[in-house]
């Protein structure tokens, strides 16, 4: 039998005392999609970074086509046909989409200058393959997170790699883009490319993967035929016990509480729209105390902008329409005002907007409340530690100790730290933007449980998400946005994912009446 395309055997990698990967054997065959599963911090990214030459100093060996290799850097691996789509969207903000796609491999004209026309043309073609039509001359910083993710995918495709690692490629994508990506994967598979697919969206695994390997604490604990794998099985293998996935949606029979947040035809009167931004343009919604309301929509529907605006960090423009909190009109002009009103916000991109990665878990988790903890400006250390410790335990953050830099935690655990900071501020209205992006099933379940718990305590939650299952499973009601305006309101106890998707895409049966009927 021929040697596999990729053969990793006995690979181990540790950081200081942390064994990120221990003695892992892993293979990829040509034309195969091999899913790599595991909890946050299980070592998936690390294992793949080892494969792609990004992380050195590992033990064990790697063979490509049976030939032993030891890459000296990502460029070296790329030359050997091994490429990776990174979990963190590592793009250069000020450069254009085309420049990003071809960074480090710019096409040259005969005189040695960059062939810009070719670059633009080819970048455009690549992006079309992934299903977006973007002006590839636009700087990447003006793109939405989802669009950026598609750019990184296009960039990886441009490498024409034989082995392509996709580390959570869909975490910021909504359903149509995911479908499109699956089509691309099918195409690649036909071209005999070996693909490693990492995702925390369990329902995707069965659809794309042929094989699945599960890591726990850095070691392989199981291997499955993915085509027959159910989400429940996969989750159980990852966590080591059955996960009663989330949505025990025992519809909160408790009477919905008082009206907390109410928006009536809310819109921004921006002097000039910013390209790519979708500011609120006619939104009606209500969040009651004790209720979890979802915000659905496609890429660029304007969910993020709505949440940012409500938190006082959106586009600076006059508000139109009515925004009331407990019946009183509000207009926070910054986070501090919003916090004073009892509103907290969990941003979509934790690395950019959520955490000081170099700083300790302790410092990051109590930041919102140090003012409140302080007596005469002095923060009692014990109170600070206690608060952080409480949060870490409540959310089950997996960490070495409170003084570890938060950047050394896995993505999911980082997310929990941000959520923990929000909860410490004891909000009455919690704005969450993709709170489970990159979070593993186990942690998701915990976060959902927590959300349920908080809601039960009378907090209102407004949750934007691209994961249909999450919206349907967790929320009481979902408001669907399109083009910055609310177009539908659905009651999740009566409709499913398909209806939601249809509403978001602007097709399908008109079910507004139904939703409205149940809401009022």
């Amino acid at each position, binding site marked *: 039998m021929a040697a596999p395309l990729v053969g990793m055997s006995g690979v181990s990698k540790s950081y*200081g*005392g942390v064994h990120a990967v221990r003695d892992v054997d892993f293979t990829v065959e040509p034309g195969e999609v091999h899913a790599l599963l595991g909890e946050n911090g299980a070592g998936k990214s690390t294992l793949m970074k080892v494969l792609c030459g*990004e*992380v050195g100093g590992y033990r064990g060996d790697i063979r490509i086509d049976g030939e032993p290799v030891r890459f000296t850097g990502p460029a070296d691996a790329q030359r050997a046909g091994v490429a990776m789509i990174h979990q963190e969207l590592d793009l250069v903000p000020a450069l254009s989409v085309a420049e990003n796609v071809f960074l480090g491999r710019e096409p040259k004209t005969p005189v040695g200058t960059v062939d810009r026309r070719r670059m633009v043309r080819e970048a455009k073609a690549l992006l079309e393959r992934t299903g977006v039509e973007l002006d590839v001359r636009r700087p990447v910083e003006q793109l939405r997170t989802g669009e950026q993710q598609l750019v990184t995918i296009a960039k990886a495709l441009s490498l024409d790699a034989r082995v392509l690692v996709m580390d959570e490629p869909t975490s910021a994508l909504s359903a149509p883009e995911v479908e499109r990506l699956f089509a691309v994967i099918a195409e690649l598979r036909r071209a005999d490319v070996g693909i490693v697919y990492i995702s925390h969206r369990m329902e995707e695994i069965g659809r794309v993967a042929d094989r699945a390997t599960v890591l726990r604490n850095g070691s392989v604990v199981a291997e499955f035929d993915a085509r027959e794998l159910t989400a429940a099985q996969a989750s159980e293998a990852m966590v080591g*016990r059955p996960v009663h996935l989330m949505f025990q949606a025992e519809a909160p029979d408790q009477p919905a509480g008082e009206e907390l947040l109410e928006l009536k035809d809310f819109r921004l009167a921006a002097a000039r729209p910013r390209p790519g931004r979708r500011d609120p343009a006619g939104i009606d919604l209500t969040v009651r105390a004790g209720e979890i309301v979802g915000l659905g929509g496609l890429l660029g529907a304007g969910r993020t902008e709505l949440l940012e605006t409500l*938190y006082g*960090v959106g586009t600076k423009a006059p508000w139109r329409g009515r925004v009331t909190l407990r019946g009183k009109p509000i207009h926070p002009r*910054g*986070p*501090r005002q919003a*916090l004073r009103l009892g509103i907290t*916000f969990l*941003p979509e991109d934790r690395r*950019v*907007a*959520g*955490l*000081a*990665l*170099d*700083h300790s878990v302790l*410092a*990051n988790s*109590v*930041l*919102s409340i*140090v*003012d409140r*903890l*302080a007596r005469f*400006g*002095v*923060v009692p*250390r014990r109170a600070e530690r206690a608060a952080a410790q409480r949060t*870490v*335990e409540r*959310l*089950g*953050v*997996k*960490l*070495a*100790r409170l003084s*570890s*830099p938060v*950047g*050394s935690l896995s993505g999911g655990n980082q997310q929990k730290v941000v959520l923990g*900071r929000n909860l410490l*501020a004891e909000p009455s209205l919690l704005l969450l933007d993709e709170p489970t992006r990159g979070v593993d099933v186990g942690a998701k379940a*915990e976060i959902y449980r927590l959300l349920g718990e908080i809601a039960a305590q009378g907090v209102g939650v407004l949750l934007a998400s691209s994961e249909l299952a999450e919206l349907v499973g967790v929320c009481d009601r979902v408001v669907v946005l399109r083009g910055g305006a609310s177009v539908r309101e659905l009651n999740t106890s009566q409709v499913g994912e398909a209806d939601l998707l249809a509403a978001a895409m602007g097709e399908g049966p008109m079910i507004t009446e139904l939703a409205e009927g149940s809401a009022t």
Partner: protein
Amino acid sequence: MSEPATKAGDAAAFGLERRRGADLLEVVFKFQSLFGLVLVVIAAIVFSPTKNGSLLFIDPDNLFNVVRSISEIGILAVGMTLVILIGGIDLSVGSVLGLASVGAAVLLVENDLGVFLAVLIVLAIGLVFGLLQGVASAKFGIQAFIVTLAGMQIARGLARIWSGGQGVSITYGDGPGQAPVAFSLLGERTFNGVVPIPALVFAVVAGLAIVLLRVSAFSRHIYAIGGNEKAARLSGVPVTRVKVLVFGICGLLAALAGIVHAGQLNFGGPNDGAMYELDAIAAVVIGGTSLMGGRGTVVGTVAGALLVGVLRNILALNNVDSNIQLLVIGLVIVLAAGLQRLRPASAGS
């Protein structure tokens, strides 16, 4: 329900087991700015010239002289540490020192104000100057480098205009045109004539700053802003206010250094303090504070300032040619900064 808690507990236990070794290493690296200092001090003792069989370097008089000689830079560097922690920089401190020294001299000598009032006014000037720079930088978003580069020129111009184009000498006495004798204390030594007052002022300033950065909510905000300003803002840190205040404190300390300067030299020199900003920044960076912000300590800064002071002292005591001194100090600064890099990388590659 109990499961996750146990998991966290496990992790903590696991962490604890690992902790001892890692801790020692971390302590070593935490204090590496001090190690640089210790190394230089050892070198200084080894290379110290002797006179009548005793080492000149460790003569207490000499040691206090070293501390006195860095006290002004040290005071500037404490303020600079705060500014750099929020990811800023303040190039104006040297000129503000000059402005303050002129101010103190003019107010005491020409305007015949009392020491208390004169000092108060000068400190207020430094504070306001710093606050204005802070507003320009934090509120209007102009890069701190450029704001304070302009501030450096402006303060220098003001100092020259105020002084009337020439340094102002301070003489002491009760007559008109004489400064109160109390002010001359800044040039004296206390504790039986051993400890120079400027060194004492520096020690107090540094001590206060160290405590402030340890315990205050304000310091948490400072570090957070330097670590990730956007995250800090979203977490409810009053970013603009903290930044403005930090620049204000830096200006205030620069004015304090200027007062010490005037008191030590009995002179308000409009051109004094030139290039002090670079010395102060060097002390901060040698002390292990990152120019990117968010990381560093005042302890390190004090060590950095002492390191440079000791280095200069031992080179001078050995009569090293001044040009060679430039070379040696330059190289040692790079080496000291290189030492910082041995710190185990925290995250990323």
